[in-house]
């Protein structure tokens, strides 16, 4: 199963530093990686969005959002538990370089 990156832009609040999420998004867009960028995982959880089942069911999903405890229970709240092997990268406590490094997104890679 191929790796999937899910990026949450947390659009309804300012708790995720704007420079971090913008930089991560830019490097994601500049890479060749597959991704799904969503406006807000909280909103999807509250709406029990079926797309969450798809994310949770992916073997190698890497979620770029906020605190892992929050993300895991948001998925649970929507009725879709994340697999234990899912990775969660925290844009509230890490720098863009740290997040992109963990995702293996090379700086300045260009692809489309």
């Amino acid at each position, binding site marked *: 199963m191929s790796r*999937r990156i899910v990026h949450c*832009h*947390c*659009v*309804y*609040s300012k*708790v995720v530093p704007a420079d971090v*999420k*913008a*930089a991560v*998004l*830019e*490097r*994601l*867009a*500049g890479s060749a*990686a*597959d*991704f*799904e*960028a*969503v*406006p*807000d*995982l*909280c*909103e*999807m*959880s*509250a*709406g*029990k*969005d*079926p*797309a969450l089942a798809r994310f949770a069911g992916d073997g190698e999903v890497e979620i770029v959002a*906020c*605190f*892992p*405890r*929050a*993300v895991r*229970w*948001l998925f*649970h*709240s929507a009725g879709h538990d994340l697999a234990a092997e899912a990775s969660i990268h925290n844009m*509230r*406590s890490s720098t863009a370089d740290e997040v992109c490094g963990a995702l293996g997104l090379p700086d*300045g890679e*260009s692809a*489309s």
Partner: protein
Amino acid sequence: MKPREAARPGPSAPFGELHVTVEPGGFDGVDAAGRGAVLAALLEAGHPVSRKAGAGEGALARLGGDVGVLDRAPEQVVEDVAARREAAAAPAPGAWTPWFPVIDYDRCTNCMQCLSFCLFDVYSVDGDGRITVQNQEKCKTSCPACSRVCPEVAILFPKYKKGPINGDEVKAEDIASESMKVDISSLLGGDIYSALKERSGSAKQRFSTERDESKALLERKRCLKELKDKLDIPSEVLMSLPSAGDIEERARRARAKQEERIARSRSAQDQKKTDGPSTQEWDI
């Protein structure tokens, strides 16, 4: 009588497959900053975007396909996508600010303090007698008060500014911390509903004996300030608190739910005794 505040609109309909996709080569000629700006603008307008093999099928719009990106401002791209969304009669995103509690069931002990405390019917009990967040849309934006009264730090608000309420790791000192654990008893002198009723009674008595409206107002202000400071409750939430009658009714329903849960639990235990010990209990 003051009209009850209506619940917030609630989450939008699921996105389903109403996403925008990036076509292979769709970003050609656009630099990294430009690509990021287009994605950010779409997300901020509430449109999910994906790039993966086969994602174009059934997509609302395809960047670099039916929606051009090269030499266009991000706002123009967003306008095109919004027009397509409208044409597809898809619900407009962003009608609701997603602020609601999320329960960490690894920590929750099902003590029901949150159910008893929340005055806005956000919590309920599921078929298994377990506390659950049932009415997210009734939660008051920016109010984390229920998480402050949870003795186990099991209630998260992912968009809260500080940890551990925001989902950050829970440390031993957080549980003991005065700023985290608010003992309702010490705050209001016992059961919150009885306390509110008592306060209301005292206020009435003061009115009748002293006819001193300013003293009653000062008492109310003092009590509200205490709640605001200790629980970080926004002023607008305090202003929209239900009436005394509503609070009493809410308390009655909360107690009934708890009693029902206890009765169900006792019944299950009695049934277990009647059935005799399980093989596990015989330690076979």
